[in-house]
């Protein structure tokens, strides 16, 4: 690429600039424990009164009160309480083929968490269906350590 500056022909130089956030941070005692659990293939909820919240929060959404880090292992299987069917996944979605986004209430939990369900076809999706996680072989302590959920009793 060239441009003309004051009559002189000047070569434009291209430089590569990578935007980065060069720092690390702790996820705190609640989210941190949740993700450490995922790395070990365990899903943790937090007690909020009589309820178990999954994913765990640092506060009770009903009262705003801080919650003690009192964790309960839940799942790993659960029940779909509502769902949608994505026909054209974006490049940000967990799967590159049609899949369901679902609210999944894990066994032992009182709230539902969002995740993808690899059911193969919309015909296999229904409210109340049972699903179980498909774990990644290499887990990093992230929500997508669970690659997705699959219908219980046989992957798509």
């Amino acid at each position, binding site marked *: 690429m060239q441009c003309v500056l004051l009559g002189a022909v000047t070569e434009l130089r291209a430089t590569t600039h990578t935007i980065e956030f060069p720092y690390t941070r702790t996820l705190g005692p609640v989210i941190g424990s949740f993700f450490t659990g995922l790395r070990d293939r365990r899903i943790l909820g937090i007690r909020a009164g009589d309820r178990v919240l999954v994913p765990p929060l640092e506060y009770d959404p009903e009262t705003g009160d801080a919650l003690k880090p009192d964790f309960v292992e839940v799942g790993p299987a659960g029940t779909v309480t509502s769902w949608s069917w994505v026909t054209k996944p974006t490049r940000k979605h967990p799967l590159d083929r049609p899949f369901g986004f679902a609210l999944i209430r894990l066994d032992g939990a009182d709230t539902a968490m969002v995740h993808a369900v690899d059911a193969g076809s919309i015909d296999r999706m229904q409210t109340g269906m049972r699903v179980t996680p498909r774990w990644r072989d290499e887990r990093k302590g*992230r929500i997508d350590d669970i690659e997705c959920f699959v219908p219980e009793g046989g992957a798509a």
Partner: protein
Amino acid sequence: MAALKDVAIIGYAQARNERQAQATEVQFLFPVINEALEMSKIPRREIGFTCAGSCDYLSGQTFAFVMNLEAVGAWPPISESHVEMDGAWALYEAWVRLQHEDIDTALVFGSGKSSPGNPAEIYPLQMDPYTLTPLGFDPVSSAAIQARALLDAGKVTERQMAEIAARSRRDAMKNPYAQVTGEFDVDELLAQPYVTAPLRKHDLPPISDGACAVVLATGDKAREVCERPAWIRGIDHRIEAHQPGMRDLTTSRSTRLAGEAAGVGSAPIEVAELSATFTHQEPILREALGLGDQVAINPSGGALSANPVMAVGLARIAEAAKQIVEGGRRRTLGHATSGMCLQQNLVCVLEGEQ
């Protein structure tokens, strides 16, 4: 909260919504602000406070909102503020500011140019960064989950959703700012394939570039310049848990609480302009606000006929004000929402004097 000091809407204007505006955001804001100020008869330099609502993520640039001040005229220096929210929340801030009584006018605007980006990839960035953003959980997918919950609960049918779309598009034919308008047959709409089941294209809002501006004035000032001001009799906003799986998605508790605090039920509402950006959200909002069949819902065509993100809620309030100022109505309501699946809601009750 009930209104403490009398504040009224005395001017408003909107841009014609477009799928892809050729003008920049500040360029299409400029005439909108001029028009709202002209209607208010308040000289630009006499405006006591200016507050804007916009989203830097849509522009893809930090502090993009500062450039929008070019459309206001910020010299000599003005007193202004910005919310990274729909302009309806900018109106709320201006209403609070006017309660201080040292100024008597305010200019509020909301604007957004959604067309340059891909909303399905940008919006997940506003979600929980640990459990939702990494999944690319987008607004259409989350709305579809809410619609499914409503269908499963028997609170709405796909036909009723299509009827809401058809009515909105028909009503929008009379709205010069609307983007998706026309007569549509409900059976033909229902014959269309799902985009993200159970939502079809007509259940979704369009992608719009647009803007809205509103001018506020207190008591005597409003009466001095405006024949029939739209008085803000109550305004309130409430928020719920950010995890959609921790709420009952078939109801809107925050809307109900905001409506109660704004005094919706204390006298009949004639017209309600609701930010139902998906068809199935209209019955949720109607139920939460206790709006019966006698209430005209979204005569402008609502958010289903134009969805200028960051301006659509303020536009609902402007349309509700127009029903009083120009339409002679006695009592109307404007509603705005933020977050996924109606997470946060603002209700503004407006009244004209007899």
